[in-house]
C-alpha cells in the first residue's frame, strides 16, 4: 500500500488569528444554543467545520460577538491574548454558573520574527470539529440551567495591553469549588487553544 502524504498548508500569524477568532465566534454561538441562554428559534443553521452549526439571528448578540471576535483577532495577531472566558450567569442573582475557558498559547517566535508554519487545514478543521462535538455533548453532564441566564466574555491579556474604549477591567468572575471538565484542544502551530469548562456543583449532586 502506497503511503499517503498529507498536504500541508502554510499558516501565517494573521491566518491563525482569523481561524482562532472565528472558532471562538462559532463556539460562543454553540454554547449559547446548547445551554439555552437564548431561545432555540432565534438560531439559524449553517454549515461549518463539516458540521451543522447554529448561529444566533438576534442583531444585538450578533453585533456583540462580531465586535468581540474582531478585537480578539487583533490581540491574537499581537500575541497579547492569554485566555478567553465565556461566563454564564444567573440573570436574577448575577451568580456565575458556568465558565467556558479557552486558554491560548502563542508561539512567540512567529510573533517576533513573522515566520510562518505549515499544517494541513483539514487537520485543524478536524480538531475543531472534535471540540464542537464535545461542546454539543456537554449537555449530558452539565447541570440544567432552569433560570434565565445571561452571558459575558472575559479576556485575559498581557498587562501592557492598551484597553480599548469598549472594554473595561473586571474581576475574573470565578466559581467557588467548581467541577471541571477538560475538553480537546486544537493547534494551528502558531496558536494552541485548550478548552475547559468549569461549573457550579449542582445541588442534586451535593445531596
Amino acid at each position, binding site marked *: 500500500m502506497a503511503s499517503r502524504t498529507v498536504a500541508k498548508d502554510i499558516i501565517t500569524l494573521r491566518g491563525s488569528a482569523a481561524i482562532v477568532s472565528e472558532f471562538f465566534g462559532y463556539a460562543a454561538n454553540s454554547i449559547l444554543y446548547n445551554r439555552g441562554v437564548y431561545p432555540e428559534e432565534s438560531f439559524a443553521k449553517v454549515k461549518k467545520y463539516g458540521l451543522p452549526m447554529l448561529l444566533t439571528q438576534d442583531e*444585538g448578540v450578533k453585533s*456583540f460577538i462580531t465586535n468581540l471576535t474582531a478585537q480578539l483577532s487583533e490581540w491574537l495577531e499581537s500575541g497579547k491574548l492569554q485566555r478567553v*472566558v465565556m461566563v454564564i450567569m444567573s440573570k436574577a442573582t448575577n451568580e456565575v454558573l458556568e465558565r467556558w475557558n479557552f486558554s491560548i498559547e502563542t508561539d512567540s517566535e512567529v510573533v517576533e520574527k513573522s515566520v510562518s508554519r505549515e499544517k494541513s487545514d483539514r487537520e485543524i478543521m478536524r480538531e475543531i470539529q472534535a471540540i464542537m462535538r464535545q461542546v454539543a455533548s456537554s449537555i449530558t453532564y452539565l447541570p440544567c440551567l432552569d433560570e434565565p441566564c*445571561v452571558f459575558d466574555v*472575559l479576556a485575559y*491579556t498581557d498587562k501592557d495591553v492598551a484597553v480599548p474604549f469598549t472594554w473595561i477591567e473586571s474581576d475574573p468572575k470565578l466559581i467557588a469549588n467548581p467541577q471541571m471538565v477538560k475538553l480537546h484542544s486544537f493547534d494551528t502551530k502558531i496558536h494552541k487553544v485548550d478548552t475547559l469548562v468549569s461549573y457550579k456543583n449542582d445541588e442534586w449532586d451535593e445531596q
Partner: protein
Amino acid sequence: MILRTPPPKKQRAEPIHHDSPSPLVASEGRLVIYEDNPLAAPPPESPNQPSDHLLCTYQCRQMVKADVLDALSNAEKQISDYQSKLEALSESLSKAEAERKKFRDQFLYAEQELAAAKGREQMLHDQLLKEVDDSQERFRKQLETNNELKGKLQNEMNLRKKAEFSSVSAEEKAADLEGKLNQFSQSIETEKKRLHNELALLKGESKLSISRISADLERMEFRANNAEKESELLKEQLEDLKKHLNECLNQKSEVEKKFSSFTFQEVSSSESNILIKHLQEELRNYESEVREARKLKSSHEDIELLKAKLLEEKGRRERVESELSKLQEQQISLVNLENELLLWKLITKDIPDVSCPEDVPVKFATLQKEVIDSTIKIGEANARLKQIEVRLDATELAKQNAEADAALAKEKAEVLKSEVKRTELMLSMVNEERDKLRNVINDSKRHKNEEAGDEMTSGTVVQELESSLVKKESCIKELERNLREQKEINDRQQNEIKLLHDRLNNEARRIKSLERESDRLRSEISLLESKLGHGDYSSANTKVLRMVNTLAVDNESKQTIEALQTELQKTKEKLQALEELKNQSGDTGKLVDSYISEKIMKLKEQIATLEKREERYKTVFADRISVFRRACCELFGYKIVMDEHQRPNGIPVTRFTLQSIYAQNDDEKLEFEYESGNTNILENNYTVQREISHQVDIFVRKLNSIPAFTANLTVESFNRRTLS
C-alpha cells in the same frame, strides 16, 4: 636335495664335519647321505673306480635310498611341519602386521584426533580469549558507563535534594500562605456575616420606615380627605357668601339706583334715609363678613401652609433621626473596620517582605512565581528522572546482555571443559592402547628378533608416536593450565558481575523511590494545573478585561426607560386626577402634588442622566467615526460615504461612494457595493468613460484588485491636477 651323482668319498670327512648331528633340521634343507660322500670326494680323484664301488653302492644305494627316502619323508614331514609352522608364523606375522597396521591406523587416527582436538582446543582457546577480551572490554565499558551513571546519579541526587529543599520550602511557604489565606477567608466570612446582619438590620429598618411612611401616607390621605371635606365645606360657605355678596351687591346697586332716583325727587323721607342707613349697615356688615371670610380663608391657607411645613419638618426630623442612627451604625462599622485594619496590618507584619497592604498582591505574585518556578524545576527534574530511568533501563539491558554473554561464555567454558575431559579420556584411552600396543610390540619383538627391519621401523614409529604423545600431553597440560587461568578470570568476572548486580539493585531501589517522588510531584502539578484551570492568574502579568455588554446595558436602559415611562404615565394620571381635585379644592391637592412632584423630579433626573449617557455614547462614536473617516481620506485620498440600500429582493446591502480629493468635478465618483465580504464596482457616468472603463477592466476584472485601481486613479488624478 639328493644329488644324482653321488660325490666322491674323499669328500666324506668334510661332509662328516659338515654333517650336523641333526640332519633333520630343515632349516637349510640340505641332506648329506652318510655313505656317499660326493662332497668329500676330491675333485682331482677321478671316477675311475666305479665298479666296486658300484656294487656296494647299489645296496648301499638301496639302503641309502631307503634311508634317504625315509629321511626324505622325514624331511618332507619336517618340511611340511616347518611349512605349516612357517605358515602359522607367517599368519601370525601377517596378523601381527595387520594388528600393527591397525594399531598404526589407530595411532594415526588418534594422532589426527589429537591434532583435531588440539586444533579445536586452539580455536576454542582463541575464541575463549576473544570472548574473554570482548567481555572484558564490555565489562570495562559497562564499568565506565556505570561510573558515568554514578556520577550523573550523584549529580541528579544533588539536584533532587536541592529541588526537594526548594519544594519543601515552597510547600512551607504555600502552607503558610494557605493558613493566611484561610485566616483572610475567615475574616472575609465574618465580614460577610456582619454585612449580612447589617443588611438584615437595614432591611428591617427599611421595612419599618416603609411602614412608617405608609402610616404617614395614610394619615396624609386622611388629612387630605378631611382637608378636602373642609375645603368643600368652605367652598360651599364661600359660594353662599358669594351669593350673599352678589345679592348684597345687587341690593346695593338697586339701592343706589333707588338712591339716585330718590335724590332727584328730593323726598327727604326719613324712612328712605333709614333704609339707606340700614342698607349701608348691612353692606358694612356684609363687607366685614366678607373681610372676615377672606381673613379666614387667608388664615386657613396659612394654616395649610404651616401644616405642610410642619410635615416637611417632621419628615426632615425623621430623616435626620434615621441618618443619625445610620451615623451611629457607621461609626460602629468604622470602629470595626479600624480593628480589622489593625488585624490586617498585624497579619501583613507577620508576612515577610510586606510593609504595606499594596505589597501583599506583589508578595502573592512573587510567591506564585516561586511556585511556578518550583513546578518548572520539578518538571525539569521529572524530565531528568525520566532520562535517568531510560539510561538505567539501557544499563540494565546491557547488564542482561553481559549476563547472557557471561552465561554463554560459561557454557562454552563448560563445553570446552567437557571437550577437554573427553580429549583427556581419549588421551588416556589412547595411552592405554599405546601401552597395550607397546606390550604387543614388545611381544612381537621378542617373537620376531630376526625381522629387524620391520620391527625397527615399527619401533621408530612407536617412538615417534610416543614422542608425539608426550608433546601432546604437554600441550594438554598447557591447555589445562590455560583453562585454569580462564576459570580464575571467569570467577573474578563473576564476582565483578555480582558486585554490579548489587549496585544495580541499589540503583533500582533508588529509582523506585524517585518514581514515588515523581508521582507525588505529578499529583501536585495536577493540583496546580487544576487551580490554573479554575481561572487563577498572576496579576503581575495578566489583566482581565470585559467588553461593556452593550446588550445588557441597552436592555437595562431600555427596561429602566420602560419602567420609568410606565411610572410617568401613572403619575401623570394621578396628577390629572389630583389637578381635577385641586380645581375642586385647590388647597388639599398641594400635599399630594409635592409628593408626586418629587417622584416626577427624580424620574426626570434619571431620564436626563440616561439620555445624557446615550448622547455621550453617540458623540464619542461620532467623534471616533469622523476621526477614522478623516484619517482614511487623508491616507488613501478618497472621501468615503457609506449608505445602506435594499435590493429589489429585499437583501440589505452596503453602498460605498468614493470621491478622490484630486477630483476635478463632483461627477467623478466611484460607487461600490459591499455584501458579506464581496466588493463589486457599480457602473455610473464616470466609470463608463473610456479611460476609466479601461482601467476597471484591467485592474478589477482581470487582476481582481480594487486597491490597485483606486491607487492608479489617485496617481492619475494627482498628475492631472499638478500638471493643470
